[in-house]
């Protein structure tokens, strides 16, 4: 085990393999750090900033996103200091102001004691965490969706607003989204990003099947119902 580094997380000395991130090392210890844009197996992106930690360097301290911070020898990190808690709350408020209806964000707010949002609420339905983009490219080897535009008009979209040939209808982008921007709109999803419901076979002849509700497709059950 030559390639191990020793660092201190929340006052506890830990050894972690070189090349891992502070977030991974902390989670290995069972420390809870909230994240939205991190997902094991996908490239760390550092977009949501919720995984922020306080880094002590001598007399100074700085804040850094732990999901993109590699461990190094002698590092001193606090994952839940007063400063971190305060900043994290503000970050969450900012995220909530762009996606007030997200259940994931609402739950986090409840956990952290964020009870109001002081920023102007603009529901964009997307926090630009890039999870769906990375999932599409790295996990599905597809690259059907990507970021479009820049600045305040930046969004996740498909090239020329059409479902691209690369799309495998895997539904992964909807599944992985923390704010459900890609939430399935069932029947009305036509030029939508994934058209995942096309994958679900419509069971046409199914008189008494118990489990068929899992595969009735977007239009609902054909044998029962209408």
């Amino acid at each position, binding site marked *: 085990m030559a390639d191990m580094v020793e660092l201190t997380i929340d006052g506890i000395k830990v050894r972690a393999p070189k090349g891992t991130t502070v977030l991974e090392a902390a989670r290995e210890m069972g420390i809870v750090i909230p994240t939205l844009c991190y997902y094991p197996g996908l490239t760390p992106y550092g977009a949501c900033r919720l995984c922020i930690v306080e880094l002590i360097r001598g007399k100074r301290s700085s804040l850094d996103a732990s999901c993109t911070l590699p461990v190094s020898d002698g590092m001193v990190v606090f994952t839940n200091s007063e400063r971190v808690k305060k900043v994290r709350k503000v970050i969450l408020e900012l995220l909530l102001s762009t996606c007030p209806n997200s259940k994931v964000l609402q739950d986090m707010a409840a956990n952290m004691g964020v009870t109001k949002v002081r920023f102007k609420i603009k529901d964009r339905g997307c926090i630009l965490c890039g999870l769906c983009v990375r999932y599409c*490219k790295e996990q599905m080897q*597809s*690259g*059907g*969706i*990507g*970021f*479009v*535009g*820049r600045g305040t008009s930046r969004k996740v*979209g*498909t*090239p*020329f607003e059409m479902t*691209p*040939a*690369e799309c495998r209808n895997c539904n992964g982008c909807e599944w992985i989204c923390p704010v459900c921007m890609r939430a399935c709109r069932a029947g009305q999803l036509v030029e939508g990003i994934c058209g995942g419901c096309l994958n679900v076979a419509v069971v046409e002849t199914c008189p008494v099947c118990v489990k068929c509700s899992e595969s009735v497709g977007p239009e609902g059950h054909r044998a029962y119902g209408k």
Partner: protein
Amino acid sequence: MATGIVREVDLKALEKIFRGFEGKGESILIPLVQAIQAEYGFLPKEALVKASHHFRIPLSRFYGVVTFYAQFYLTPRGKHTIRCCRGTACHVRGAAKVIETVEQELGLKEGETSEDLSFSFETVACLGACALAPVVVLDERYYGQMNPEKVRVLVRQYKGASIQESSIGEENNGKAD
């Protein structure tokens, strides 16, 4: 916007462009798109789709890059591009009036291209020539210390020239046929 005009896009020229970019991975993306734009004047969708297939780079990567940078255009551009500076120095010296004049003369709003594809009109934040404020750039040529009168003369000059050229072009075409 000149979306009503459908132009036939000749994709044969692409193969020649592609030859210079073979086997270099995704890093070729921006130079490649620049080369395509140099060829067509803008970025036709068909050309990007073909490039995406040829180099096995997802179309979403192309689209992301193209929509990110202001230098790339997805709609046809006018023959002449007129850029008016609306930076601080130019603004103070009356760029707003100059821009207004150009808008009136061309009948275009900022960022638009005329129907006959003769002019594209843009405003820019700074051209780095503040000593010449207000600055107007017409087809790579800088015109300094502009005022509504001067810019009107300039635009009309080019307007006349482009009408003349197109009529000459038509005559020549007639002869060639």
